[in-house]
């Protein structure tokens, strides 16, 4: 197992209204991964990220980043990570370059980093434009540039594609993948859209109502999806079909047959088998729970 860049143990948090916003979160982000932190709005993603950055005071549990305790090594940890929490945090009356200069001073990065990060996020041509004239997509990209100024080893991005147009979403996703692949940056990215995470993450954590419902690699999640896919079948003679399909673990259910879905090829061979035995098929429907459905199932307490 790779070393963990972020590890929380039994992290819980209550806001003053007494509602448990986070309940026993054990987040594990491996070095070199793109960790997709997934959950519907209000699930506790931002609260978790704000705790990781010290923007909320920890109540219960522990937080270790880069193997160090956050509370005692806050400054050392923050020097090595970049973040973008919720909406872009930029000074509207300053130019793109001046915004970067504010943080370049704080991080003590070289002057050449400003042009480098602007190029990385594709904003070189607008460096002298005031941020108030920027589109949301440009602001989001500039915020990522701010987060990248000091070449951090870890990036925390909270819903970085929120409010972006399709083109902006693709660009941001490609940038995240590029940073991970070419610069070796470990990235924790939150989103409420599974399809978005599926396209870039290597690891996934699903949070709902403050609880972690799933955590593992993307392929582990895809296996879970496979386990939960099935084939629905209705024929002229369900009884005979059931007998014929015993090797496929067919079951009778509500007047039709249900069997585990494996592959499209297997579905075709089942159809052929039934036809060859004189059974006509009315309906042969793979209920291939895509991740979207799985996500809905997980987060709507079906699991």
């Amino acid at each position, binding site marked *: 197992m790779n070393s963990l860049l972020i590890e929380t143990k039994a992290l819980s948090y209550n806001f003053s209204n007494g509602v448990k916003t986070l309940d026993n979160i054990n987040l594990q982000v491996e070095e070199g991964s793109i960790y997709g932190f997934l959950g519907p709005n209000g699930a506790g993603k931002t609260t978790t990220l704000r705790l990781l950055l010290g923007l909320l005071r920890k109540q219960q549990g522990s937080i270790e980043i880069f193997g160090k305790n956050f509370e005692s090594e806050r*400054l050392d940890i923050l020097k090595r990570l970049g973040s973008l929490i919720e909406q872009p945090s930029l000074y509207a009356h*300053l130019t793109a370059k001046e915004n970067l200069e504010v943080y370049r001073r704080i991080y003590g990065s070289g002057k050449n980093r400003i042009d480098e990060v602007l190029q990385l996020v594709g904003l070189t041509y607008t460096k002298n434009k005031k941020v108030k004239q920027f589109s949301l997509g440009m602001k989001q990209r500039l915020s990522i540039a701010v987060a990248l100024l000091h070449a951090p080893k870890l990036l925390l991005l909270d819903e970085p594609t929120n409010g972006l147009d399709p083109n902006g979403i693709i660009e941001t996703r490609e940038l995240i993948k590029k940073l991970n692949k070419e610069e070796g940056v470990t990235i924790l990215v939150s989103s409420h859209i599974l399809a978005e995470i599926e396209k870039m993450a290597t690891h996934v954590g699903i949070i709902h109502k403050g609880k972690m419902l799933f955590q593992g690699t993307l392929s582990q999640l895809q296996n879970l999806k496979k386990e939960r896919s099935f084939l629905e079948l209705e024929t002229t003679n369900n009884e005979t079909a059931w007998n014929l399909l015993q090797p496929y673990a067919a079951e009778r259910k509500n007047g039709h047959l249900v069997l585990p879905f494996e592959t499209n090829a297997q579905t075709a061979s089942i159809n052929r088998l039934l036809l060859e035995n004189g059974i006509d098929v009315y309906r042969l429907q793979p209920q291939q729970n895509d991740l979207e459905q799985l996500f809905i199932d997980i987060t709507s307490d079906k699991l």
Partner: protein
Amino acid sequence: MSFAISTRAELLKTKRSASFWLTISAAAMMPGLFFLAHYFKPEGAIKALENDPWGTQFMWGWESLNFFIFPLYVILICTLIPQIEFKNNTWKQVFASPQSLSNIYFSKFLTIHLMTFFFYLSFTFFMILSGVLTSLLNSDFNFLRKTINWQTLATLSFKSYLSILGISAIQYWFSLRFKNFIAPVGIGLALLVVSFIAYQFKWEHIYKFPFAHPLLTQQTFGKVGRPLIENHEWNSILYFLAFILIGLLDLKFKKEKG
């Protein structure tokens, strides 16, 4: 070293901001009015300014400054500097950057005081410019033939600065507590009005009330037998120390930052 870096970053944030323009316009207001008044209505002013044009004009300027403009400026600047973060939703980025809380807190406060210093310099510059231009356009004014008493000017600036220290720390604390612009400015203005009323009614404890300290400095300045630092100015320093500490602790123990 890291504190200097934080302060340099803070100063950059004020570029083209409302706080910068407020400083320039508040400093230029009285000198501008004097210039216009002397230009359009020179008769009375020529006579009044005959003996000591610089001393008299500066005293007129400082009167309006210490009675109203300067405390108002301090209330506004203490709010406008933290408002840069509130308005742009940037507090979270500031707190998530590798700066200690006290660096964040004091670098912003120092920026406020550097702006105040800039205000003093600008005011003095505009006053001199106003006098010079007045004399160039109307030679009956004798600003160019007389000298400026720099020592009096420096002493009054110093005492005036001491007198606003308490207000600055109180207002800075308010402006960090309130997200909106109106609340800290409203409270500050209300307390300023209270100080005028207390002054009118000759309240015996007025020297303990921080918002009255600038006008007390103006009132006592130049009088014979007064100490360099008046009682109310010592009080202003004490308020400053107390509220700067309260503000820092308040920030430190805040559950939610940014």
